[in-house]
């Protein structure tokens, strides 16, 4: 029987297959990682629809408004009143007027016509329709003046 003799040097480990696999993994993660800044808020569960196809050409000027419920870590609604989320701030529809006015002023300052700005509304599937209508109405009010609107939904496959 042949007995392996322990050599004086360390045993040679072939690293090539491992490096191959690791590079494959890196390439995979690099390709699927989306570095584009998403305005999505995790608290909003969008309604699902078959026709909600992502646009082929990205809009140049868009303002995303997240409108949904305060939820716990399990995704359960902890407050029955829906809020408009601006980052960490949560505001009622009426309270968000000031914020919308600031956004509208910003677009006016940088010289963008509000006709070219699309307000993308990401509203939770369960919010009352009347409040979404109110939010749209608020965006059109005197002193805010947004004109183009889009309602977001998740694509259903």
């Amino acid at each position, binding site marked *: 029987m042949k007995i392996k003799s322990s050599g004086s040097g360390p045993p040679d480990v072939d*690293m090539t297959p*491992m*490096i191959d696999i*690791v*590079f494959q*993994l*890196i390439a995979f*993660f*690099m390709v*699927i*990682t*989306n570095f584009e800044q*998403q305005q*999505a808020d995790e608290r909003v569960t*969008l*309604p*699902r*629809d*078959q*026709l*909600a*196809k*992502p*646009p082929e050409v990205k809009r140049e000027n868009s303002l995303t408004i997240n409108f949904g419920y305060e939820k716990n870590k399990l995704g359960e609604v902890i407050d029955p009143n829906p809020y408009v989320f601006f980052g960490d701030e949560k505001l009622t529809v009426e309270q968000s007027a000031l914020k919308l006015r600031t956004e509208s002023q910003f677009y006016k300052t940088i010289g963008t016509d509000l006709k070219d700005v*699309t307000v*993308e509304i*990401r*509203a*939770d*599937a*369960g*919010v*009352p*329709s*009347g409040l*979404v*209508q*109110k939010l*749209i*109405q608020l965006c*059109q009010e005197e002193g805010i003046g947004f*004109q*183009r*609107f*889009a*309602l*977001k*939904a*998740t*694509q259903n496959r």
Partner: protein
Amino acid sequence: MKIRTRNQAGDKIETQMAPMIDVVFQLLIFFMLTLKIIEPEGDFDINMPLGAPQTSSVTDADLPPFKVRLQADPDNRELALLTYNGQPLGNGANAFLRLNSEILKSVNALRAAGPGNLDKQEVEIDPDYGLQYKNIISAISACSGKMVDGKMVRYISRIKFAPIREKE
């Protein structure tokens, strides 16, 4: 000047793999941690929403909008009754399928009436205040078109909201 001499007798050059593997693993961990799976999101344009001044040449007198009325169940805020131009279409997912076929009938009639009519036609969505928003999206989708073999066939693109109904 020191001149590098060639390795004699074909000595194997030892490559230092450890630093490369360190960096590669760091990269791998970075990409794994930053990975966020986001579902594809699409949207529906609302061309002439509520309260907007009538800037288009189309007025109600020219082409009355198709009226889609969504009534809510006051208990669970789900769809109780869907009506299209006064015609009841029931509730649930089937109501939206029926709405889709009714819209197709109207679209075909418009096409037969003359070119350009379809582009001018509007749909007015009139929901109850408390109705769950997902029903609005389903109604807009049913009016917008249909998926056939992975391609969208567009029906009506001008969709607007009726004035807000008061809270029940």
